[in-house]
């Protein structure tokens, strides 16, 4: 599904590149953890896949198409197929929880009826049914994070990109959500999660790609650490 080919990312005005000559391939239906210390380049990879950034070197293929060569409309289509959980949530301040989640469906052109059905379902999955009408400023950190997850999963995306989706969640909630991602994955969605939650990574025993200082360190099935 995705092929990252020798990709480097050098943010303008910085010294060393945030990502250096990284190459991985990802098949449809895979479940991948991106791990590595703070500043290793995990979010950079996620942003590159989301086409929020363009690589300074190398290519990224999505279903065999170079995403750097996307036309305007293809970028939209690309993002519509992806369920993205942003590290900084990126909720719309002026919209309620319900409206934030609903927006992802509105963009896809779902009918109001479908929206009325799917949004509560998604909120229920992340345990936020009771906060439907709250605005982001009225939520706790973990609640915000869960709204972001609900917005990503509500549209049954082909690919989920989740950047640190459990950083503000307690152990039980985090585990539940990881299991939710796994369940969605089992239903066919490809999942990429950048995370520091070593306990969950260890527990899930999925494919782990470890970065350090922008370089690929490890790519194998297993736990958070190399043993």
């Amino acid at each position, binding site marked *: 599904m995705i092929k990252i080919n020798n990709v480097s990312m050098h943010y303008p005005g910085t010294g060393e590149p945030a990502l250096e000559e990284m190459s991985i391939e990802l098949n449809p239906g895979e479940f991948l953890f991106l791990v590595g210390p703070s500043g290793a380049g995990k979010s950079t990879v996620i942003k590159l896949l989301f086409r929020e950034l363009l690589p300074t070197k190398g290519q990224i293929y999505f279903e065999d198409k170079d995403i750097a060569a996307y036309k305007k409309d293809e970028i939209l289509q690309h993002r519509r197929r992806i369920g993205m959980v942003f590290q900084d949530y990126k909720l719309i301040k*002026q919209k309620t929880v319900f409206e934030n989640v609903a927006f992802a469906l509105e963009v896809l052109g779902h009918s109001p009826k479908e929206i009325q059905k799917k949004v509560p379902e998604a909120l229920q999955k992340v345990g936020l049914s009771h906060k439907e009408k709250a605005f982001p400023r009225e939520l706790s950190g973990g609640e915000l994070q869960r709204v972001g997850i609900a917005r990503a999963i509500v549209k049954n995306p082909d690919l989920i990109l989740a950047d640190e989706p459990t950083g503000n969640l307690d152990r039980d909630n985090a585990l539940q959500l990881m299991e939710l991602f796994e369940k969605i994955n089992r239903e066919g969605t490809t999942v990429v999660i950048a995370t520091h939650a070593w306990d969950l990574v260890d527990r899930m025993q999925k494919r782990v790609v470890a970065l350090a200082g922008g370089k690929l360190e490890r790519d194998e099935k297993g736990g958070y650490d190399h043993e």
Partner: protein
Amino acid sequence: MNRYAFRYSMRQSFQSLSRNAWLAILTSGMIAISLIILGGFLLLTINVNQFIHTLESNVEVSVFLEEGVNVGEVEDRIRNLEGVAGQTFVSKEEGLEDFSRTMGDPTLLRDLEGENNPLPDLIRVQVTEPEQVAIVAETVQAYPEVELVDYGEELVARLMQITSRLNALFVTLGVLIALGAVFLIVNIIRLSVVARQEEVVVMKYMGASNGYIRFPFFTEGLVMGWTGTVAAVTVLGVVYAQLTSAFRQDSLILLFQPVTDLERLLPIFLGLMIMGTLMAGFGSFVSIRKYLRV
């Protein structure tokens, strides 16, 4: 976009307006002020114009007649000329009396009455347009019955020159103020959009098309522009109505009659409304452009 897009967009517009109510009201108010200044200036312009026009039209052509001609015949010919608004016959006797009166003593020139009166008969011709003064004078001058025509060429020329200068000045100022108002309105909207740039970026990341994101901003701009415009036109209309009625009640001030015919006022008010509304919509539209590039 599909069949629900319009519905979602409209809901979005009204939601944004009510949730950013404070910002929306402030924006509308600022648009209103800009338009009131522009509109006030335009009203001032058409009134100054009218005033000068009245001044100029007051210039009369004095037609001195040869002795013993048929006055009625001459009057008929003058009446049929283009640009003639009216005429008054002043017989030589009346002329003498007038002159005496200006000298402060009606009996001053008593000796000249009757047969001794050296003055010619006179027709004072009023014209409709100041530009007609010279043309009418020239035409009438050619009549055999006419001894002489006089109308203060110098004064008319001077007035015409002042008029054309003032007109140029007012048009220039008007255009500048209009441009200023457009600049203000567009940028007021732009500032109000700055506060919401994050929202635009998130929408873009959700895969919303530029049109889909823009449309609510555009309609919000239209609504704010429309509100501000209606406020401006209302204020201008009420104040102007008060002013004109105050001026008109006073019959002494004959020279300065404010413009009240709808024919000339309507274009100004309509123009303001269209401009304010469109500029605000347009302002919203272009203001988010730079946040759409993600």
